[in-house]
Structures are given as C-alpha cells and as structure tokens.
C-alpha cells in the first residue's frame, strides 16, 4: 500500500470507529446539556447494549452469518431490541440513582454514577464471564476495493446506521414537541416548568434516547468486532466522553463531529505513533481540551470555574 492509500485506509477505519463513538457521545452530551451531569455509567450502558444484542441474537437462533434479505430483518430486530433495552435501563438508572440527588451538591450524582458503572460491569461480568465473548458474525461482509484500500460492508453499515440515528435525533430535537421540551429544559429549567413542561418526564426521555443510542452503538460494535467484553464500556465511554467534550459538551452536532474526530485520531495514532499509546493520547486530548478550551469546538460558553 502506498503511504497515501495507508492514510485513506486509516481514515476509513477511523470513520467507522468514530461513528460508534459519536453514537455514545450523543448520550453524554444530551444528558449533560439537560442536567449538567457527566453520566459516568453511560459507557457501561453501551456495553450492556452489546450484550443485549448478543442475547437477542441468541434468542433468534442466530449463530452465524444470515444470508439473503433476512439479514436486514434480523439486524433490525436486534437493533431495535437493544435500543429499547438500553433506553429503559438508562431511564431506570436516572430514576433510581440521579433524580433523588438532583438538588444535592453536584459531586453526589457523579459518585453514584461511578457506583452504577461498577454495578453494571460486575453484573455483566458475573453473567458473561471475565473474558471476551464472541458475537456471531451476523452479516456477510463483502468488501469494496479501491486500489489497495478496503471498505467493508460492515463499515458502510456502521456509517449508515449512525447517520440514520443522528439524522433521526436532529429531526426529533428540532421538529417535535417533545424535542422542543428537551431543548427548553436544557436552556432554562425553571422557565420550562413554568411553561407547563413536565421536567421529570423530559429528563427521563432524554435519558431514554441517549441510552438507546448507546445501545445502537453496542449493537453495531458487536457486529463489527464480533466480540463483546464486560470491560468495553469503560474505555469506550471515556473516549466517547472525550469526543463529546471536544465537540462541545451539550451540543449535539458537536458530539457527532467530536466522535468522528476521536475515531480518526485513534486510527491515525495507532498507525503512526504506537498502538500502545493510543489511549493515553486520547486522554491527553481530553485534558488539554478541558484545560484550554472547555467549551469545545462548537460549544456554548459554559462557566469554567465553580460558582
């Protein structure tokens, strides 16, 4: 492969990875936008989504590649199932661990979020074991060759699903009544409630959607990597959070752009710096953005210092 082709290949790999990060990052950014909480457990919701997808696949009797048009149906069912399950899980977590602390000092729900993260990881570990579990190779994966550069059907699927989700989200947030309620609550909670918006339901809905998107990410992850592991949520979650911050926390378009950027950064770092330092590089980006430009690329100005 020529150096140019290598770069293009990494860009394509990075784009797929970035799409997954973007799906997860959307959940972080939506929740932060509406209640200013870093939902530490969100990455683990993504991980649970991948396991739910595994369960549903098993339930449908899928053990290998599905051929023909059935593959789209099967994948659709798994996708929707995962999204529903994680959406509900997100709502449950909000109700049990965050809502009671809505008026507590800001550190309190952050601490419970960490606790929830541990609980989710451990429960999945107990059920699924400490090692990676293989995920059936559901979809056939023909590739397109452009010179030496490979684009696989799976990568196209990821990009397609992500774009569809994000477009759906944009439509929902901008065009529907509930979406407007979400935006209003994020901007000024008191005014929104005075306008008759049910704050609790709106927040619950936000969690549902954000978590469902993470679930979609989990499904996509399982299909792409053919393996799911209880520890996936933590690292992927941190990187997706970095993406959300990079794009501008609270900003939906920012989460999408941030996700893609982090994915590209990761792919390029793995190729040109070192596989081993990829994580450290992403975290360094996180620190640098928070220290020097906490509002991110597209973010609104958020107060940097306390008080």
């Amino acid at each position, binding site marked *: 492969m020529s150096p140019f082709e290598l770069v293009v290949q990494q860009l394509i790999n990075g784009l797929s990875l970035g799409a997954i990060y973007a799906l997860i990052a959307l959940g972080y950014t939506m929740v932060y936008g509406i209640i*200013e*909480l*870093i939902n530490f457990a969100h990455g683990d919701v993504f991980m649970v989504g991948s396991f739910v997808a595994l369960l549903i696949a098993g339930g449908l009797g899928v053990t290998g590649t599905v051929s023909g048009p059935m593959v789209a149906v099967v994948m659709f069912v798994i996708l929707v199932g995962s999204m529903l399950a994680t959406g509900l899980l997100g709502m449950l977590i909000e109700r049990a*661990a965050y809502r*009671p*602390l809505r008026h*507590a000092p*800001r*550190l*309190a*729900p*952050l*601490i*419970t979020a*960490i*606790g*929830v*993260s*541990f*609980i989710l*990881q*451990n*429960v999945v*570990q*107990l059920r699924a074991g400490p090692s990676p579990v293989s995920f059936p190779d559901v979809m056939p994966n023909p590739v397109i060759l452009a010179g030496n550069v490979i684009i696989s059907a799976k990568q196209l699927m990821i990009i397609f699903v992500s774009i569809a989700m994000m477009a759906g989200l944009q439509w929902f947030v901008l065009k529907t009544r509930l979406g407007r309620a979400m935006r209003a609550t994020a901007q000024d909670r008191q005014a929104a409630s005075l306008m008759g918006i049910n704050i609790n339901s709106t927040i619950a809905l936000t969690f549902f959607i954000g978590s469902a998107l993470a679930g979609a990410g989990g499904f996509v992850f399982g299909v792409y990597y053919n393996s799911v592991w209880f520890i996936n949520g*933590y690292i992927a979650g*941190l990187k997706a*959070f970095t993406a959300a*911050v990079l794009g501008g926390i609270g900003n939906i378009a920012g989460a999408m752009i941030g996700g893609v950027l982090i994915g590209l950064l990761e792919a390029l770092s793995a190729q040109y710096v*070192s596989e*081993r*330092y990829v*994580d*450290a590089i992403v*975290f*360094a980006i*996180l*620190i640098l953005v*928070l*220290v020097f430009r*906490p509002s991110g690329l597209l973010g609104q100005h958020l*107060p*940097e*210092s*306390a*008080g």
Partner: protein
Amino acid sequence: MSEPAAVAKATMFPRFGSDLKSKALLGAVIVLAILYPILDSNASHVSSAADAGVFVLLALGLNIVVGYAGLLDLGYAAFFAIGSYAYGFLASPRFGIHLAFWLMLPIAGIIAAIFGIILGAPTLRLRGDYLAIVTLGFGEIVPVIFLNADKYTNGPNGINALDPPVVGSYNFGHNPLPYYFVVLFLIALIVIIIRRLRDSPLGRAWMAIREDEVAAAAMGIDTVKTKLFAFAIGASFSGIGGVVYSSKLGLVTPDNFRFSTSAFILSMVVLGGMGNIPGVILGAVILFELQSLILTQMTIWSHQLGAFTHIGFLDQLDFVNLKFLLYGLALVLMMLFRPEGLLPSARRRMELHATPEVAASESQELYDVSTEAQSA
C-alpha cells in the same frame, strides 16, 4: 490563658478525642491496634492488616482532597503509582541506587506532591465535574506510561527485588510484622498532621471553599492556592503509601494503579464519611478487609456449605467476584441514604439536629429586638 481566649477555645467545635468518653475509646483502639499481631498470630492476617493500613493512609490522603477541599479526584491512584515506582527506581537493583526506605518516605512524598502541583496548577480552577474527569484522565495516563516505558520500568513485569527496609542491622525481609507497625506509626503521624492542618487557617479555608467558593474568594481566600495545597498534601500521602506498599510487596508493577484502585479508595472515603478522620479509617479497614478476608472467607464457607448440603450452586459461588458490585452499591447507597457516611462528624450531626435554643429564637425572629443589638 486570658478569659476571652478561654472562651474562644471553649466555643470551637467539639473534636473527637476532646471529651473523656472519646479519649477512652481512642485509647482502646490504639491499644488494640498495637496488640493485634499478638492476638492474631496468623502471618497472612497480619500481612493483610498491614496492607489495609496502607490503604488507610491512602484514604486519609484522599479525604483531604475530597472531604476537606471538596475536590473529586478520580485519579488518586496515579500518585500511589508514582510513589511506588519512585521506590522501585531508587531502592532496588534496577539502576543500582539504594536509598534507604526511611529516606524514601519523605522523598516519595515530595515527588508525589510535585506531580500533584503539576496536575493541579492548570486544572484546579475547573468546575468540579470537569476536574473529576481530568483527574481520571491523568489517572489513566500515568499507569500507561509506566507500562510502556520499558527501558525504565521493565513494562508489565515491573521491577522486583525491591530493597526491604532496614533498621540498624535488622532487615524487615518478608516478615509482615515490622511493616504493620511502621504503617501504624505512619497513620498516627498523618492523623496528627491532618488534624493540625484542619484546625488552622488552611483547614478553615478548605471548609469555606467547600461551602461557597465565591464567598470564600470574596473573603480573601486564594482558592486556587488553597486547593493546590490540598491536592499536593493528598498526593504526598499517596506517594508515601506507595513506598510502604511496594517495599512490603518487594515488587512494583503497573497493575494496581488503574481507575479501579482510585475508585476503591474513593469508596472508602464515601463509606466512612467524607471529611471525617475516624470514619475514613473505618471505611478503609472495612472495605479492604472485605475484599481481602471477608469475601474469601465467605467463599470458603459457601463451598463448604455446598459440599455439606450438596447444593450445587453454593459450591460455585465466588464472593470475591462481587467486589466491584459491592463497591458500587456502597457508593450509590451511601450517597442516596447516608451521605454523611457511617460515622458522621460532629459537625454534620449538628447540621441535622437544630438545638432547642435555636428553635426558640427562630420563632421570635422578626419582631423581637434583642438587647445586644446596640451599636455600642
């Protein structure tokens, strides 16, 4: 003591250990702690207790950062790593440097404090949740660096054959007993240091910042410097803990310093009571012994019960696997139901119970003119 000073002393908040009952309790605890290895001669128990003591040190250090200054540090284990590796570099065959254990204690403390300042200086002005994530990031980067800087750190295998501490001609070797006493001594020392700092302008500044940072700044407190102090001091205790831990283990690897360790220590502080010294010590001991002794013991009992009753699944139960579930539950349940911790400090107790005089004066609030309210 002049009369106003006596009054001043008397009106300060009651501290644990200031009245006879708690003095007696404290004395009993100290005596028990010193006699423990005699009461329980099982070497592995003593070893575990010494390790628990290290985590008590860590929890006390994190308590300053989280409990006093109100900063959520999610990367605290990084300083633990720095202290441990400092010992690995400077007291082992690795580079042929063999500084004494006793010298390494303050040296590691200073090194860790310096890193605390390096991390804190640009980041402490951030909001609480952002700061938490930044410290988390730092806490992830440090072990990765130690893991990958093979040339210095020997990568995943780490550095072994660390020098055991030596006093005169007595070499600690692999005997857990002297480590246990060293740890006890360090805990006592650190508790004294922390209490004296807490009862000083610095301690009040920490409290003020926790209460209302804007008002604290408006009263002349340099909030960044004050937070930095807490951060650096907390980091130094973590570094000191690292020296003790790695010298006792004889080995330092990148394994024990990830986020799970930071969160583990945080759980101790949350469980015990943020800002409360006896509480944090209790929380540390409980959680540490939980995972080192209690859970393993429960697993053994469960297997025995399973063998005895022929109930299959009991035989399979491994409670140690539930570790993180329990930490997670501790964090969630404590925050939801008992945020003041297992042992609420005297202050928090007062917060929750208004005294009778206060209740009376409140009812007369607006229209009673108190006779003292004269501008003399």
